[in-house]
């Protein structure tokens, strides 16, 4: 009887180990199928590579000024598994560019750019508003405001998920404090209307090579970049 029990335990151990191996194998991606993604030249134009890279000044419409100092920066290449539109397992090597600035009054600007399998993405955070935009699909992927969020996910047909009413449009030029900028991304917040207050960031303007050049709050305060030179 003891022998039978021991035999059953041994078999169950073998079965458990086999199941674990199969499970782990199913979660992994074959290395030989790895896809490398690199920033396109048009995406690289959103890098902050002007002389304002480390430090810039902004002034609001009541003439109160503040400086934004580079707090954190990073460039890295890393591997991502299971990141594909049709849920098939694809291992990809991706690029990430990151800059984070903090201001005199603890305002905050983060810029992250990713070369992902689903297309290059740009992620912008100003204070407590954060959005991610796919530059190739020209669609908003997600928005975060305080503890609220709206997210989409990639499918064969593009993006599905929460309805997002906020918008991103592009402008050829914009003059801010007598400085003409070209290649502007303009974000307008049209979601979370029940949760907004006078200090909610509701418009953001980003310029190629310069990063944040202007943003507005719900209550009417506007911040505009001062050209350093």
């Amino acid at each position, binding site marked *: 009887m003891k022998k039978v029990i021991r035999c059953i335990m041994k078999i169950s151990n073998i079965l458990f180990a086999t199941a674990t191996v199969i499970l782990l194998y199913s979660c992994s991606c074959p290395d030989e199928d790895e896809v490398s993604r690199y920033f396109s030249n048009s995406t690289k134009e959103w890098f902050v590579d002007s002389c304002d890279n480390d*430090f810039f*000044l902004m002034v609001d419409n*009541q*003439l*109160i*000024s*503040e*400086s934004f*100092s580079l707090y954190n920066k990073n460039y890295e290449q890393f591997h991502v598994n299971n990141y594909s539109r049709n849920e098939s397992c694809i291992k990809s090597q991706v690029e990430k560019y990151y800059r984070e600035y903090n201001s*005199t*009054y*603890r*305002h905050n600007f983060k810029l992250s750019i990713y070369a992902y399998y689903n297309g290059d993405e740009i992620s912008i955070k100003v204070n407590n508003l954060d959005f991610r935009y796919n530059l190739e699909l020209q669609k908003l992927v997600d928005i975060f405001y305080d503890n609220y969020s709206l997210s989409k996910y990639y499918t064969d047909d593009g993006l599905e998920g929460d309805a997002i009413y906020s918008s991103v449009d592009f402008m050829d030029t914009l003059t801010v404090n007598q400085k003409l900028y070209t290649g502007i991304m303009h974000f307008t917040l049209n979601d979370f209307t029940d949760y907004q207050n006078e*200090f909610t960031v509701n418009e953001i303007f980003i310029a190629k090579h310069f990063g944040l050049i202007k943003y507005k*709050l719900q209550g009417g*305060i506007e911040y505009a970049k001062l050209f350093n030179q």
Partner: protein
Amino acid sequence: MLKAIAILFFIFLVRTNFSIKFILVLLITLSGCLCRDVEQHDFGKLSDEALSAIPYQTGDEFKMKHTNGEIITFSVNSRLTESVTENPFVEACVEETYEKNTTLIEPDYPIFSINMVLSNEGGNSMLTAVLGNAYFYIPIDTTQIQFNTDYTEYIDSLYINDSLYLNIMKYSFTPWDNDTSSVYIENIFYNYEFGLLQIEMSNEESYSLYYEN
């Protein structure tokens, strides 16, 4: 007697299973880390003199006028005193009890909030004012003041927005990273009667106490 207890304990250890042995050894080892006699230091209550170094009470409001005209209202959201008991050092068998008085002040404009902490931790009363990213240590009585240093200056009287203020202390701040190219809070002017009188920024802008006529 002790020998007998030791022998009995040894037999007990031999006969018990591994997990019980492990727990017993762990308990015996940890007991060596515990303090038999914890030294108690009670620094009592904050003195009235110390508490009067902050003139703000919950519900108070005051206004500050920016150099360029904007008038900002600061509201004292809370001022609370609590008793704190803690071990000041990780490995010491000492427990300190002291009082901490915290004042939180919020502006109606997105600039810095103000957090003032008064405590008698360690036996010495100390007032710390945090304005955004800047920290200032404010002496709570004249014996603590070391004037004419790089950080503290005494001013007999000063006109601010057409009002005369007396017995003013000016405190200076240097950013931790010495990044003087950035815009930061450089000086604060404070007295015990009115609190914050003026806040000077490093870019020539300032905020000064303002009373509407």
